[in-house]
């Protein structure tokens, strides 16, 4: 029997909800808060309040693989160079966590991967150090310069930096979230990426999805709407411009090589052809998370203990 594509995609979203991994989520939150406190204690007046900047802040996370991104905004005069900032934060985190985690330098962040706990859970937090452009200017414009440790698309390691407004990046997807439930499409593309071992950065997928919504009339059921986005990527990924909402001079499209873009276009073409050929293929491209099978909800309902008026007690909310 043919697969109901809309129902399947809804089930995929349900089985990948981060709330299903509540314990792991709570462990991440506790570690994030601990790192946050440690940074504030270590750097005192040289640091502004660290904040969430990744998929959790944007509400686009899926439960198959997740980490937390913690933006650490420093004052201009805290470090003479961006490289000093990056290395100092790395040294501090390495010293603090080397006995309990792998700490490593990444493209623009310092990755902390804690050793598995007794339940086998692994907490991963990426700390992204950034420095304001001029002393005290961050309070006015939220802009930060990030150090590029290793090659990042067309940006060179060591010699380049990224200037951006991370809060504007987070706000961008929030502002677009209500457009035909755009975040659902981003989550589905992340599921595709994770299970099919693909390389596009999540930020790239977010921006190109928003672009598709800008350019197209996205309507219909969930599959029709996702298909419109996939077709847009297929047809435009090699030429599209994706300016960073935090700094229009940053071209996020440059984070992929021409070859990678071409391969992504082919992937999108193949995916649509296969699924249109045989709807069962949708289960391969967008699988359920086996750990969280979807329950039959047909018997669920708003129940009443008896047909009589309910009188709620005085209640406190916070």
């Amino acid at each position, binding site marked *: 029997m043919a697969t109901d594509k809309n129902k399947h995609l809804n089930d995929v979203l349900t089985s990948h909800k981060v709330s299903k991994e509540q314990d792991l989520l709570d462990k991440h939150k506790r570690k994030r808060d601990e790192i946050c406190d440690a940074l504030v204690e270590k750097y005192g007046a040289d640091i502004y309040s660290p904040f969430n900047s990744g998929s959790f802040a944007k509400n686009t996370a899926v439960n198959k693989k997740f980490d937390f991104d913690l933006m650490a905004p420093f004052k201009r005069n805290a470090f003479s160079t961006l490289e000093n900032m990056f290395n100092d934060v790395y040294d501090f985190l390495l010293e603090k966590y080397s006995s309990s985690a792998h700490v490593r330098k990444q493209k623009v962040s310092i990755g902390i991967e804690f050793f598995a706990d007794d339940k086998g859970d692994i907490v991963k937090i990426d700390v992204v150090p950034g420095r304001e452009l001029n002393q005290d200017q961050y309070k006015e414009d939220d802009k930060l310069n990030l150090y590029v440790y290793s090659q990042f698309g067309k940006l060179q390691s060591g010699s380049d930096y990224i200037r951006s407004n991370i809060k504007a990046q987070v706000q961008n997807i929030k502002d677009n979230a209500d457009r035909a439930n755009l975040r659902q499409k981003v989550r589905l593309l992340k599921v595709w990426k994770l299970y099919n071992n693909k390389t596009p950065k999540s930020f790239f997928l977010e921006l190109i999805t928003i672009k598709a919504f800008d350019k197209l009339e996205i309507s219909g059921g969930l599959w029709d709407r996702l298909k419109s986005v996939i077709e847009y990527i297929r047809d435009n990924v090699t030429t599209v411009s994706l300016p960073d909402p935090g700094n229009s001079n940053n071209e996020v499209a440059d984070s992929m090589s021409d070859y990678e873009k071409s391969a992504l276009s082919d992937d999108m073409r193949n995916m649509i052809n296969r699924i249109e050929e045989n709807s069962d293929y949708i289960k391969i491209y967008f699988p359920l998370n086996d750990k969280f099978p979807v329950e039959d909800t047909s018997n669920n309902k708003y129940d009443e203990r008896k047909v009589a008026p309910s009188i*709620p*007690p005085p209640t406190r*909310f916070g």
Partner: protein
Amino acid sequence: MKLRNEEIGLFLEISDDLLRTIRESGLLHYPKEFGGILIGNYSTDKKIVNVIDTLLPTSYKSSKFSFERGSEGLKEQLETLFNGAPSLIYVGEWHTHPDAQPLPSGTDIMGLTGIAKHRDVNITSPILLIVGLTPASMELGFYVYFKDKIYRYETY
């Protein structure tokens, strides 16, 4: 506005007019929290809750970070609505989070759980609307208590 929670397969509908009324009531008390109860009915198959109106409390305590709804006069009003045509019932609660996200606090979760289990409440799945409110914007979070857990609705 139509919302659903896919995980439990339940739906919620609420009009933009009612949301405007709620926002205006919240702004009158901003930057303190404020709230009220939600009135409506269930579809015949009990899959959809239609939120139709709000009753504002005549007794309450509020601050920037908390809101305590009293129950003075509620019984009489709810009995009148129940006996009306169409019959309307209590379906849940709403309150504002001034300058904050519409995410349930521990107090909110305890409050909703307490309502669901209270002997004078006959519905098993009360809903909770949290309104993240600033003078310029409103962000909504709709939740439901279902079988000992809280679920969030999403638009669709």
